[in-house]
């Protein structure tokens, strides 16, 4: 029993070599897979930079790295981890999965997505071409006046600004394609209220990026004008304001933090439902909470500016927005756990990583509550406790959450499942590594006030043991992450064949082949509920009863 395809384009031989096809493709699946692969590649590079920094901080007053090299590693690590790992991973996953989930045969503006993807790569090239002259030394968030020409006269900051600007521009273009696709190309019957949660997360993230992306692009443009065309946007004393950069950049960075968590929680929701074999406890509340996180979280940008010379009223505004986040985050965690309750849980790798992500994110957000309390943030801000809190939330979201999504959708991406035992080894190594790496930093920050971003610490300050353990923990964490990256590379060609629907998912990406044909679907099903794939399975079992269901690896099941 096989379906008659409506479009027969796949049988024709390709006219050009495979790499030319890929490099010129505007198919969302090729581009999404490209973004995801590139993101994990940049994760590896970021980890090397992190390891070099932790090696410098292994012992007090170490001279392994000079201050200048340390600052370069710090700046490159931040830019790579945020602009070339976390954001491209989130957007890449959305770009691959969301059109499939909504039953679209492609995206609405494929050339825009193609340009966007390549702009991200161009950005990364600019950042690392900085090695040919001098990389930036201005830090993760290059605050003016330090990032102005007067204090860093080499072109490193220009390279940083161009690189991150290209990445943001590219991701904004992909987000435009995603929003247009979501608005116009949903399958018949796929009303907004029936959209899978991950597709909702993609919609919310895209809209969020359309707000915060241009703000950061404006700030970066102003910085470039300041540095290259005698501008005074952020220069003090000539009508400029260093604090303006802080406001604009923190709106972006805070929004990005939320975007990464929205992606992770969206993926986790899909995974939890699939592996508990239950619907999400309350879809509407989860979707509404994701939207609330995007709005409240971004409005809390001044939570990062509690020690800056701004009025106390603004600090209260930031605290109100930050603490208000307890409600939507709490509701999501409640609904995720309530989905598991009463389920028939199969503890496979995606769920394992999803659970790890929830645990790590909960530590990060719990610590972030303290950073939101005004007077307490005067103590904790810019200590290693803030490093640890941010890393718990973002390693939880982007690495654990990203790996959960990778294990979950790897069968769709490649047609094969990732190795389960390597996944378990990687997972437990990563859990141990994360705790060892960041709990000591929390203690060093809160008890001894060790400051952030510093290239050394002194023997007399009582943080030797903390930093030694943190460095070892980072090594363990990196080892754990590398195991999963290796697992992905090995499983790409060597994993067990997955079939079109290995997990029994509810959404439409499991309806098509793994990996899908260029046009995604031969036949579009008529969507009648929020769980179309479940409806299809039921229809098939009714039709074929009493004979047992047979897998159909070479063709798609028909509704």
């Amino acid at each position, binding site marked *: 029993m096989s379906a008659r395809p409506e479009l027969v384009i796949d049988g024709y031989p390709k006219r050009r070599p495979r790499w030319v096809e890929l490099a010129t493709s505007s198919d969302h699946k090729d581009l999404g897979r490209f973004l995801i692969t590139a993101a994990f590649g940049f994760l590896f590079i970021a980890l090397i930079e992190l390891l070099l920094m932790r090696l410098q901080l292994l012992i007090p007053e170490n001279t392994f790295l000079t*201050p*200048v090299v340390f*600052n370069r590693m*710090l700046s490159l690590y931040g830019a790579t981890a945020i602009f070339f790992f976390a954001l491209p991973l989130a957007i890449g996953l959305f770009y691959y999965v969301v059109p499939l989930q909504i039953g679209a045969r492609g995206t609405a503006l494929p050339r825009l997505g193609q340009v966007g993807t390549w702009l991200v790569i161009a950005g990364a090239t600019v950042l690392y071409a900085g090695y040919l002259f001098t990389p930036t030394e201005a830090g993760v968030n290059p*605050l003016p*006046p*330090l990032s102005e020409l007067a204090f860093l006269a080499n072109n490193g900051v220009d390279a940083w600004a161009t690189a991150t600007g290209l990445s943001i521009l590219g991701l904004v273009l992909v987000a435009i394609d995603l929003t247009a696709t979501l608005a116009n190309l949903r399958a018949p019957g796929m009303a907004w209220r029936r959209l899978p949660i991950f597709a909702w997360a993609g919609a919310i993230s895209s809209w969020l990026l359309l707000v915060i992306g241009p703000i950061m692009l404006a700030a970066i443009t102003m910085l470039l004008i300041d540095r290259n065309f005698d501008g005074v946007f952020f220069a*003090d004393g000539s009508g400029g304001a*260093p604090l303006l950069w802080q406001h604009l950049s923190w709106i972006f960075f805070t929004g990005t933090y939320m975007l990464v968590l929205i992606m992770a929680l969206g993926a986790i929701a899909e995974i939890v439902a699939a592996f*508990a074999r*239950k*619907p999400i406890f*309350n*879809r509407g*509340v989860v979707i509404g909470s994701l939207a609330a996180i995007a709005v409240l979280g971004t409005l809390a940008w001044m939570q990062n500016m509690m*020690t800056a*010379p701004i009025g*106390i009223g603004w600090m209260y505004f930031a*605290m109100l927005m930050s*603490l*208000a986040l*307890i*409600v939507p985050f*709490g*509701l999501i965690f*409640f*609904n*995720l*756990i309530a989905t*598991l*309750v*009463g*389920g*028939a*849980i*199969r*503890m496979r790798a995606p769920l394992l990583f999803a*659970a790890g992500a*929830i*645990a790590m994110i*909960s*530590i990060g957000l*719990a610590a972030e*509550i*303290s950073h939101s*309390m*005004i*007077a*307490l943030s*005067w*103590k904790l*801000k*810019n*200590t290693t406790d803030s490093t640890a809190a941010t890393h718990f939330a973002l390693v939880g979201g982007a690495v654990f959450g990203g790996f959960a999504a990778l294990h979950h959708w790897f069968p769709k991406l490649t047609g094969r499942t990732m190795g389960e035992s390597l996944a378990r080894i990687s997972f437990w190594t990563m859990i141990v590594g994360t705790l060892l790496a960041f709990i000591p930093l929390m203690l060093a920050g*809160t*008890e*001894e*006030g060790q400051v952030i971003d*510093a*290239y050394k610490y002194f023997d007399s300050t009582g943080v030797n043991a903390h930093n030694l353990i943190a460095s070892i923990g980072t090594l363990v964490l990196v080892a754990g992450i590398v195991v999963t990256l290796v697992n992905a590379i090995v499983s790409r060609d060597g994993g067990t064949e997955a079939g079109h629907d290995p997990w029994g998912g509810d959404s439409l990406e499991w309806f098509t082949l793994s990996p899908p044909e260029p046009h995604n679907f031969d036949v579009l099903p008529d969507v009648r509920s929020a769980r179309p794939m479940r409806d299809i399975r039921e229809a098939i079992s009714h039709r074929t009863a009493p004979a047992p269901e047979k897998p159909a690896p070479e063709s798609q099941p028909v509704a």
Partner: protein
Amino acid sequence: MAPHSPGTDQIETLLWIGFVVGVIVFVAVTGGLLYALRRYRGERGDEPRQLSGGRGIQFRVGLLLTVFAAATFIAATVFTEKAREVPVTGPDGLEAAASTPLEIEATGQQWIWRYDYPNESFSYYKLVVPVDTTVSIDLASTDVVHTWDVPELAGKRDAVPGKHNRVVFRADEEGLYQGDSATLSGQAYGSMRTAVEVVSPEAYEEFVKSQREEIQAAQDRVVDLIGNGETP
């Protein structure tokens, strides 16, 4: 690090509140997660009841979370306001600062802190202040953003060029308190430390007087040298 000023006392209390709130959040989320994961294992092919949650339970959980967030907000507000109160100079403090705080200017520059005292003397790296006296530090920067951070005495504050920021504290015990800069300010950022030496009011008076005399002597010598046509 023990707090040594009324402001940091309040912050220390808030630290414990924040810790308790954080532990509650972590235990509730991770505990609930682990319980559900251990309790509800199933075999392949099991079909659990397709339960979903109605509005009632969502509303109750939302209300509980709102109350929790509001309580956290109120606690943070109370202790923030207490920490912001300007303390009054005590009986053991400097008499000249009995009614108005002792005003000191701190200027961050790459990569050292300069302190200007009311009698026009100044010092680099180390600030000397009298014990039990309300000290108000006016923070400024001549180049990039620096953060003044002496955790035992006060919360940290940024020194931003073109802006003024303020730190107020009252040290309750004589001694030497170490501090750092807490915003990346370039190459020597990690070495840009500072210290506050808290001494008796008499020792403070003596320090600023001798410091002023030494500065005056040095300046006179430079003027002399220039007058004699030599390079100082």
